[in-house]
């Protein structure tokens, strides 16, 4: 008869919990945010979340979700309310889902004509991406002028896994849509792009090679704390040229040499993007007003990146430290 006692206790506990539940306070202002999967984006997210939580009285649920088209669809569907710091040249869904121009300091930096399922506002961070080699490699090989010379030195870049080809420590996450291998193939660089899965894995691999003073080619972006400790040189990819046919709908028809993806990334005016229905509701008016006004500076993010990447602070601590040290953010509040 122990089981029936158990069942009764269980029922009693459930009932009593529901009693307490009904008395509990409800969180009216509750938002769900996707935390970005790279340190810079995480910082931008934490800045936004700390404003919402500490200044505007929201409760924000943070969800870990890989960035990419899937995240855009989750936002459009209303599963996630907002996400931070999307880089337009990485996002492929922005063309499809945004339909309002993107402003930076009052000027239009990008026009959109999509469905309008998602809305976006600039964060203030301006990003740049490239492929880099360590400076000691360039110093030791004066013949190396830029990406055209990579094939000449490919033996030095080869690893066990890539065999006779050179190795590019490529974009770590597939969802970022870097098209590394495609770029290498079109440009005729006999290298293999290795996708390590996370930003940290990419950094660990690169840092290890740097510490051993081996030649290596890596993908990276600015602002990033890796440049603080290690001297890196860009390989001068051709300047960005868009290619309209390079989309999934067109089965990734490329435009040949010199056009995306066989070119450098564009200068990225990064944006926070959100679900219009949720954000335009009356109770989230303050949050929307904040996102419209938010203007986070590269310099500030770079400082926090160093605190996180080199000094071992958590993202929360670094952001709190910055927030306590300055009043710049007061201007973003509605």
């Amino acid at each position, binding site marked *: 008869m122990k*089981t029936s006692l158990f069942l009764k206790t269980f029922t009693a506990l459930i009932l009593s919990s529901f009693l307490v539940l009904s008395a509990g306070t409800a*969180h009216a202002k509750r938002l*769900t945010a996707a935390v970005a999967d790279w340190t810079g984006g995480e910082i931008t997210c934490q800045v936004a979340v700390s404003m919402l939580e500490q200044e505007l009285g929201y409760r924000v649920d943070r969800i870990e979700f890989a960035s990419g088209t*899937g995240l855009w669809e989750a936002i459009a569907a209303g599963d996630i309310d907002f996400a931070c710091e999307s880089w337009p040249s990485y996002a492929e869904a922005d063309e499809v889902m945004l339909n309002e121009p993107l402003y930076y300091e009052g000027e239009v930096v990008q026009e959109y004509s999509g469905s309008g399922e998602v809305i976006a506002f600039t964060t203030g961070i301006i990003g740049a991406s490239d492929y880099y080699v360590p400076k000691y490699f360039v110093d030791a090989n004066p013949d190396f002028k830029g990406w055209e010379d990579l094939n000449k030195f490919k033996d030095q870049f080869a690893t066990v*896994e890539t065999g006779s080809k050179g190795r590019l420590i490529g974009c770590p996450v597939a969802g970022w849509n870097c098209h590394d291998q495609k770029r290498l193939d079109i440009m005729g660089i006999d290298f293999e792009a290795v996708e390590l899965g*996370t930003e940290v*894995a990419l950094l660990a691999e690169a840092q290890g090679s740097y510490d051993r003073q081996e030649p290596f080619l890596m993908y990276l972006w600015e602002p990033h704390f890796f440049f603080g400790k290690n001297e890196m040189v860009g390989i001068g990819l051709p300047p960005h040229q868009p290619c309209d046919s390079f989309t999934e709908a067109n089965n990734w028809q490329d435009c040949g040499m010199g056009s995306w993806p066989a070119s450098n990334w564009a200068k990225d005016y990064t944006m926070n993007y959100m679900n219009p229905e949720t954000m335009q509701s009356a109770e989230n008016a303050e949050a929307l007003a904040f996102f419209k006004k938010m203007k986070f500076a590269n310099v500030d993010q770079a400082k926090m990146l160093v605190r996180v990447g080199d000094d071992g602070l958590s993202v929360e601590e670094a952001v709190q430290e910055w927030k306590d040290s300055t009043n710049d953010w007061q201007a973003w509040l509605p």
Partner: protein
Amino acid sequence: MAFTQDTSAFSSKNNYQNLIIPGIIFAALLFSIWLVFQSEDVSEFPVFVTDSFTFTAWVNQGEDFLKDNIKVYTRAVAAYVKELYWMLEDFLLDSSWVFIVALLLIPSLAFGGIKLGFLVLFGTMYWGMVGLWGSAMETLALMGLSVFLSVLVGVILGIFCALSDRFERNMKPALDVMQVMPAFVYLIPAMFFFGIGGAPAILATMIYSMPPIIRLTNLGIRQVPNETIETATAFGSTKSQVLFKVQIPLALPSIMMGVNQTIMMALALVVLATFIGAQGLGSDIWVSIKKLEVGAALEGGFCVLLMAIMFDRFGKAASRETVTLPVDSQKFYLLPQTWDIYPTARYIEKPLQYIHLAVAFIFSSIIRIFSFVINLVVSLFNKDYGKLIEQFINAHYFMFSGIFILLGIIYYDSNIATIGSFPDSWNLSIRDEIAAGVKSLTVNPTFIEITRSIRATVVIYLLRPLDTYLTYLPYWFTIGALVIISWKAVNLRFAIVTAFLLTFIGACNIWTEAMITLSSVLISVLLCFVIGVPIGIMASYSKRFQNINEVILDAMQTLPYFCYLVPVLMFFGGGSFSALLATIIYAIPPIIRLTVLGLSQVSTTYSEVSRSFGGSTLQTLSKIKFPLAVPSLVMGFNQTVMMAFAMQIVTPLIGGKGLGLEVFNGLARSDTGRALAAGIGICLLAMIIDRISLAYTKKQRDALGL
């Protein structure tokens, strides 16, 4: 001597026949290697097949159709579940930590005594002290709700199964398939229909963890003896009365066992559900893995482990029958009852007994006063009810005092002083120390040299050759070989199914990825054998080693499987080798376990006989024990293969390739068709290998007359 002569004569007679099959296999192997050298590029299915069979596009079109037509309903379900989840989560997070600890501790004390009480107290305090209180509450909320729904629906389905043979026949294949599917597979359709976050995680977990409760409810009801039912019917009970008053109560122990299994399965998937945006401990572990924070990941994993042990022990304690002790023995509260014979143990237990009696006395007296007052009040209206209520309260004094304590905590928290969430200052986290320890090892030049050479050896001599072999081998040869194997091992019908399934994989244009997955699974299973069997042999000879082994293996099986990525990533960095290593660590326990089992099951008579004929320990092992343990080993092979396949879905996180990466890329790019095709591909490969090795095990067992 006669023994050996006999066997040699026996084998020489069959020598010729014995050589045919190996000969054919060897020839086929040579031919395939020749084929590999002939092919210029990786083998791909003919373009006209892959172009006309656009599974990916069909799925995506189907998704669009569903989005327009069905999603309204699935979303409504998800929204409802989400409301429930938020309610439960808010309750757990907003309640004071003391209340939650008491809520978990009091039932544990009631059913498991002081021993379980200590475990629960340690577990809950550990969550708080490593700073993961909030996450643990989120995981509890996810798990609690999915178990609740799972038991609710599962019991109903189980009852239907028990009442209708036809329903059971239709349900059984579905349950069988559900048991083979790797847990991760449930998350993709859940995301497809219900979106991202807690709600789809709960719904996926509910479906994933339902099979045991359905099976055991069905079993429990069907096991009720016919005589009992007939007696009840003879006394004029209606059908529903028989069901609810006789069958279900008698099936309760079986149902409780199902609940216990359901809880364990739910915990495993809830942690994994971080991939579709669920919060909780899984999310913490995943983030730590992504950031290479080995200490934090380990602590998160430990929290999950403690939670699993707590619920497992609680479930077992709650469904256990009360043991009646002999009159002269002393009841033990903390130490194992079997230690009753040792005076020291009795001495330690004595004070505990007094404390227990004293506490029981105090509580029962308070409750007695309470029930007396209630009786007085109720008696004003109805004397009988008053008496009944008083008896009920007195009989359940423990439950009522528990409720009083909980109410007391709530009152204290809301009216006297806010207790709030777990205090930050009670921190016992050692994640920084763990991380520092690992770091000091990874910068050690000798260590770097060793790991690098292992990595290079495995990649150059195993991984790359087999990858190349399988991907360059023409697809028709691979399909042909697997079809013949499944024909020989299982039957013709399954051979046809195999051909069909493999063609599906090829036609989806993921042949190369499938072969890479197959290659890494095969190599990891091979290495599992090379490492696991010797460990198993050692364990079977040393009792102490076996005990240590058991504890480690138990712990390993409770950890969510992406925890295994942590140490590997830490010591070996990212890449296909690390993916392989993580797979080996995850999939090795069954091999070790079943080697031990196989060897220790061999009746001692055989080994005695061997020894009496002058066989050395080594001879006994290799000639007698090992061959007899083969069926058990093949069983281990089977489980290891399945686990290795399951692992393929998370290895892309640290640089694994193949179908798993396709799943990841598909999900990240919101290309459901691609993710689904690759996910199905993994399942199909796993299914084929599973069937073949199961059939082989059966043959071996039959041949040995086991």
